[in-house]
């Protein structure tokens, strides 16, 4: 049976078809749907771990116990998980372990554009790269086979375009789950003290030699000899782009991007005249092929940055620089915005007005760096806000007193905010940290986490109490506020900034899109056109329903326009009522 599936749905399906029933992940675009989809299959164990490092460690533990396991993350999640990944490469996996890295060329929703194929080479772990949903399903199954056969973790690399595009997939009967779990003891293999790790280090190199041989016969390293004038060496989605515009050229499509099949590459090179290496981001294949002494054309004509499309490849190879005949019209942009009624809006409106430096983090609230809120001034990675706020406040000493704030979401705090907050208490910080607690992992689409009280499988569980945790870390000044109350929010921030020592404010209000939100949708607000002076203060909230329109100026009136509220969008959070000095909103 053929069905239309996204790459992510197909990966989940492939894992299930492989008879695998164990997976752990932390949500992150473009990887999130893999575990959401997997968790819907009958008889699986799937969990949201607090972060990617934990997810990988959970999967390693399951594999060590004899259970085939999957860990899933976005590309930057692999940075967080790198520590266990580099050493499980030494120990091997006992049962099978596959790690999915979903990369994001073009940074559709990420802070960087790193090419995680480099991790495969760096950690000496084989990596498969599918080009569409059908391959995504097949390759993840092959990844489990390779893992088991070679006692190695295996990477499956996807990209946004593979994960989030849909194509036809043939479904197969899932293999039944086999319980091979048992406790086994093997310290020489699993206790990575120097003496044993040195021995395993040698095994890793032996394994790589074996994997290179396997790559030569791997069924998904495919040669297509057509027109011998041009040969294209490629992998993943760029194969589709190239085939789209050059269907008649010859191809070597690599399903395994590390390690490379040297003999097969030489065989292909001998059959074609001019060779291009077509790959997004880093010259990962190109450098290795050039190191084999083979002349290829690569990054001298193809871009290093952003994802490709068929046109980019066509123009690069045809050396076409013709400008597009249809110019794009210069029209107003449509940046993403905080939703109407978003609890972050009130908090960041206040922060923007207070003239403090706000070290930001990863989440919806990162959007408040934009006009008109301008309430966030840095964003590096998950958890960085707290460490950075502390570092700034230490470096600035008196100059920074009362001026440094770190903001972090609830899920992000649990992901990587706990240790830096402990550090703030330990090292006597002076900064203020605000946990923007909207009771969910909102940015990636409402995933559960330890403070929501529910698991990925929908079971009720122990609910983390953030206030108790913060107190246990050694923070004495803690208060909980409602960011819908601007006055309370402003006063709380000012008071905590004035104090010596670290403070934490928990700004608590569930995401407006959150399914378990207990709040009823309030009635939409209205602006009285007679009372509105057109002062534009309410526009400073950047709330989507509020607009401002010019009106004809009346004699003796300074009023040039009035504000209006789109009733279909407004959910009555009441922030605009609080900022309006003329009582025109009700």
């Amino acid at each position, binding site marked *: 049976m*053929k069905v*239309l599936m996204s790459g992510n749905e197909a990966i989940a399906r492939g894992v299930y078809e492989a008879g695998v029933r164990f997976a752990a992940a932390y949500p992150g*675009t473009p990887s999130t749907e893999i575990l959401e989809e997997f968790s819907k299959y009958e008889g699986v164990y799937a969990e949201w771990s607090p972060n990617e490092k934990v997810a990988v460690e959970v999967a390693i533990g399951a594999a060590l116990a004899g259970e085939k396991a999957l860990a899933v993350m976005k590309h930057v999640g692999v940075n967080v998980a790198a520590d266990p990944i580099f050493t499980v490469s030494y120990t091997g996996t006992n049962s099978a372990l596959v790690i999915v890295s979903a990369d994001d060329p073009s940074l*559709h*929703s990420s802070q960087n554009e790193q090419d995680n194929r480099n991790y495969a080479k760096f950690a000496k772990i084989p990596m498969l790269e599918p080009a*569409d949903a059908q391959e995504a399903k097949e390759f993840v199954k092959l990844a489990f086979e390779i893992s088991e056969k070679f006692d190695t973790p295996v990477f499956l690399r996807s990209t946004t*375009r593979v994960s*989030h*595009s*849909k*194509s*036809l997939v043939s479904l197969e009967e899932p293999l039944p789950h086999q319980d091979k779990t048992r406790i086994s003891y093997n310290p020489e293999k699993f206790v990575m003290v120097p003496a044993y790790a040195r021995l395993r280090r040698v095994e890793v190199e032996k394994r790589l030699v074996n994997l290179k041989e396997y790559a030569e016969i791997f069924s998904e390293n495919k040669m297509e000899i057509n027109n011998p004038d041009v040969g294209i060496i490629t992998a993943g989605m760029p*194969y*589709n*782009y190239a*085939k*789209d*515009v*050059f*269907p008649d050229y010859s191809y070597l499509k690599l399903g395994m991007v590390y390690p490379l099949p040297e003999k097969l590459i030489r065989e292909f090179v001998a059959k074609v005249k001019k060779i291009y290496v077509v790959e997004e981001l880093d010259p990962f294949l190109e450098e290795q092929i050039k190191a084999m002494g083979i002349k290829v054309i690569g990054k001298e004509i193809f871009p290093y940055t952003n994802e490709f*499309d*068929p*046109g*980019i490849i*066509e123009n690069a190879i045809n050396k076409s620089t013709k400008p*597009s*005949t*249809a*110019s*794009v*019209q210069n*029209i*107003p*942009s*449509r*940046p*993403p*915005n*905080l*939703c109407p009624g978003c609890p972050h809006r009130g908090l960041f409106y206040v922060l923007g007005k207070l003239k403090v430096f706000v070290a930001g983090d990863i989440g*919806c609230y990162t*959007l408040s760096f934009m006009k*008109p809120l301008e309430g966030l001034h840095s964003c590096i990675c998950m958890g960085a806000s707290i460490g950075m706020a502390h570092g700034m406040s230490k470096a600035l000493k008196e100059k920074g007193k009362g001026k440094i704030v770190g903001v972090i979401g609830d899920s992000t705090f649990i992901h990587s905010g706990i240790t830096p907050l402990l550090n703030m208490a330990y090292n006597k910080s002076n900064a203020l940290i605000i946990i923007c607690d909207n009771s969910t992992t909102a940015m990636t*689409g409402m995933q559960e986490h330890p403070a929501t009280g529910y698991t990925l499988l929908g079971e009720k569980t122990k609910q983390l109490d953030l206030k108790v945790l913060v107190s246990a870390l050694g923070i004495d000044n803690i208060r909980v506020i409602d960011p819908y109350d601007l006055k309370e929010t402003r006063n709380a921030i000012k008071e905590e900034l004035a104090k010596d020592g670290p403070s934490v404010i928990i700004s608590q209000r569930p995401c407006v*899109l959150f399914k378990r939100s207990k709040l009823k949708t309030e009635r939409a607000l209205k602006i009285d056109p007679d009372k509105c002076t057109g002062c*534009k203060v309410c*526009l400073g909230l*950047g709330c*989507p329903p*509020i*607009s*401002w*329109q*010019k009106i004809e100026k009346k004699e003796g009136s300074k009023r040039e*326009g009035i504000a209006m509220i789109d009733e279909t969008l407004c959910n009555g959070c009441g922030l605009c009522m609080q900022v309006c000095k003329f009582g025109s909103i009700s």
Partner: protein
Amino acid sequence: MDNEVKSILLAGVGGQGILRASDIMCEALMEAGFDVKKSEVHGMAQRGGCVTSHVRYGSKVYSPLAKLESIDIIISFEKMETMRYLNYLSKDASLIVNSEKIYPPAVNIGDLPYPKDITKLLQERYKTVQKIDATELAQKAGNVKAANVVLLGAISNLMEINSAIWEKIIKKSFPEKLIKMNLAAFQIGKTA
């Protein structure tokens, strides 16, 4: 070279039902026996950003993304959004343009005007431009939210899929109580 592959672009704003519409379209294409791939950008769609979906179909489709100047049909769910993707349209492209206007932030706060004379500009440049008030027509069918299905009805006239298939997929795509209304919306769009 890609003469046997047809490319459709669906464009609009988060919340307009674009991804639902492109899913229905792809299911219908699959049912009609085509190879089909679709790609979309929806990272922060929920937060009011632009949403696009490329749908490509033929006997064999490689790329889920169309290249510049190759789109055969664009359905623009929001009037101004058409203008953002003109560089993707082939010279002979057919355009279906919904009259709905959704103001972006800069227009909302009075910093920039909403672009004027969009239809005129499009009609000067392209042979086939169909203006449609999908929101009003959806209201006639019973629910403004069915504007996306109205637009599918409109594009169905330009695609090689018979009505029985569309009907079958629409029935499959909605809960029982919404089927009749969506079938009506499709029909209204088809005859608009």
